[in-house]
């Protein structure tokens, strides 16, 4: 740049059009003020359309809703296009789509949660269910219970304990490995070939079917402990780790990546070693995302059954030793109660147990989530949203 020879603004330009719309080749798209009243009105119309389709014309609910929504989209677009111009119309349509996405998701999710809660609540909060195991409980007890000649026996205590132990171990294995790997990818290996490959293979790893992970862990432990004693809690934890690690890595990677570089530089410039910068600045800044990612990863594996049946076996009694013998977990418990009721002829008590176990599982994750959020708020940036 020849500094001083740069002439001041565009003196050599032809006279400048002072309005954007005066520029040749530009067609402006103006926004006229609108309110959300037409949208509300149209939403009302759409609801009516849906009701008419459903009740009067007996169209399938989903179809009625979709049709009504399409009616809404089209009319909202048309109305806002006339009122506010195309940009406002697009804005409204996308707003509608985003709200619709939300409703779309909430409906099945609410139905599912409702099913779990309503089916499981009766049994799940029963103290005896919470502190009894299934040791010695047979179909006869269920039959007696249904006939009214005996109490309800048999709970999920051992499965709760097993869930905590196995998932806890899996978390202890996966979180450090996963977190460190993502640190390698983002902080140490930046742009290196190895980091790229690792990221690629982590993606590949997300596609390992859970049962294959179980078979792999079992095969591994057979090599170590021999076939007779290979089934144990820790084998299950290893299997779950294979499933969990990629989730942790991928999540953490994304969260670390969005930590602004200027914070790293601020710390480095204070003479803070790189590892401390990562530990004390980068990780806390990303804490909220990391915590929610880790919770998500735990949630992802806490409901696994197939690999645990293969690698851990099925326990009816309490086993606190992750290094010997089968254990039970809530998901496996629910699975076997669903598919192999204690008494095939009297299925209800087993189903009750299954739903209760499912509900407990969800509650455990609620607790984990709250914990994660607590941790996150302790570390999280003190401002912003």
């Amino acid at each position: 740049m020849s500094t001083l020879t740069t002439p001041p603004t565009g003196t050599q330009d032809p006279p400048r059009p002072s309005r954007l719309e005066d520029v040749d080749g530009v067609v402006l798209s103006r926004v006229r003020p609108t309110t959300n009243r037409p949208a509300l009105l149209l939403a009302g119309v759409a609801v009516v359309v849906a009701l008419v389709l459903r009740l009067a014309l007996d169209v399938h609910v989903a179809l009625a809703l979709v049709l009504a929504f399409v009616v809404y989209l089209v009319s909202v677009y048309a109305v806002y296009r006339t009122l506010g111009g195309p940009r406002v119309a697009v804005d409204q349509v996308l707003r509608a789509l985003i709200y619709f996405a939300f409703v779309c998701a909430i409906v099945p999710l609410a139905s599912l949660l409702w099913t779990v809660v309503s089916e499981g609540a009766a049994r799940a909060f029963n103290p005896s269910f919470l502190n009894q195991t299934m040791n010695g409980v047979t179909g006869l007890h269920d039959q007696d219970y249904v006939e009214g000649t005996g109490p309800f026996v048999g709970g999920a205590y051992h499965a709760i304990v097993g869930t905590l132990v196995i998932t806890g171990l899996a978390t202890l294995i996966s979180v450090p490995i996963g977190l460190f790997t993502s640190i390698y990818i983002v902080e140490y290996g930046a742009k290196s070939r190895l980091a790229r490959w690792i990221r690629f293979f982590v993606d590949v790893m997300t596609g390992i079917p859970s049962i294959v992970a179980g078979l792999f862990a079992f095969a591994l432990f057979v090599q170590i402990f021999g076939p007779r004693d290979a089934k144990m809690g820790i084998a299950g934890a290893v299997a779950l780790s294979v499933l969990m690690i990629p989730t942790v890595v991928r999540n953490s990677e994304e969260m670390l990546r969005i930590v602004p570089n200027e914070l790293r530089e601020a710390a480095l410039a204070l003479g803070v070693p790189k590892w401390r910068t990562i530990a004390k600045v980068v990780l806390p800044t990303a804490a909220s995302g990391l915590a929610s990612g880790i919770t998500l990863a735990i949630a992802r594996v806490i409901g696994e059954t197939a690999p645990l049946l293969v690698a851990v076996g099925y326990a009816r009694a309490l086993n606190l030793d992750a290094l010997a013998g089968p254990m039970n977990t809530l998901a496996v418990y629910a699975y076997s109660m669903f598919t192999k009721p204690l008494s095939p002829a009297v299925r209800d008590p087993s189903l009750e147990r299954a739903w209760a176990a499912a509900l407990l599982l969800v509650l455990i994750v609620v607790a984990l989530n709250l914990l994660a959020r607590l941790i996150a708020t302790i570390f999280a940036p003190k401002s912003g949203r």
Partner: protein
Amino acid sequence: MNAPATSSPRTRGSAVRRPGDVLFGGASLGSAVLILLVLAGVAVFLVLEALPALTAPGEDITGGRGLWAYIWPMVFGTVVASVIAMVIATPIAIGIALFVSHYAPRRLGRAVGFVIDLLAAVPSVVFGMWGMAVFAPRLGPLYAWLEANLGWIPLFADASASGRTLLTASIVLAVMILPIITSVSREVFLQTPRLHEEAALALGATKWEMIRTAVIPFGMPGVIGGTMLGLGRALGETMAVAIILSPGAFTWNLIGSGNVTIPAEIALNFPEASGLRLSELIAAGLVLFVITLAVNLFARWIVDRRAAFSGAN
């Protein structure tokens, strides 16, 4: 950051490294390498166990027409189910993530985010039971309608009365992966720098235009990451599909019984399998592994992730 992505030599000015850095960097590299080892272990395990099936004569394989004839319909089922699940879940998940991060009032957004996170925890068995008992029956009439009105398309040829079809399974898979994609997308959308959002707004962007110019480009790599996680789960999901789907031979028909996915086939038949049958199933697992590999290569090929545009600056 417009430095060309060459592998120019980096000056490591000093040989001196502090113990903390050595440990921390070592742990990072170690973990990364450990992951590669585990993956290699899984691959070797799959190949070794699948070997008998790979080398067995065709007539000994289930179906009697060779391993590939046994596996490809499952490949079809797996891919179709995952694709449908992704097609449904990805836009919805992005929609929800935007809803939570930019549209909903803060409280509501947080509550919604929370509920959706919970869903990741619902065991797949429960998704299966719910899908079979609650969801599939509701879809039965819809399938009947599809057959009646769109039956000329081979995909909607013959409706299942029970609703336990590949399409149903795909939709349930979509519900299952929704929390995964949503959660990651939400976190990155929330991290969009204020500055960029305000830059867009100050230029006279509508809300959507602001999202399109500032939020989505910034969050895209994260969304892709979440999508890959979701895809992994969709490809690998066992129990839910095994329970919901009424599996059977290959068919183009998505709204009737038939088709099966690889993980479901493994989960269903593994318990009674031994010898060559087990080997066949693991060979199917190996194929799935290769599919995942291919899908990821493909994804990488399409989106050269991040490139020069890092959000971090």
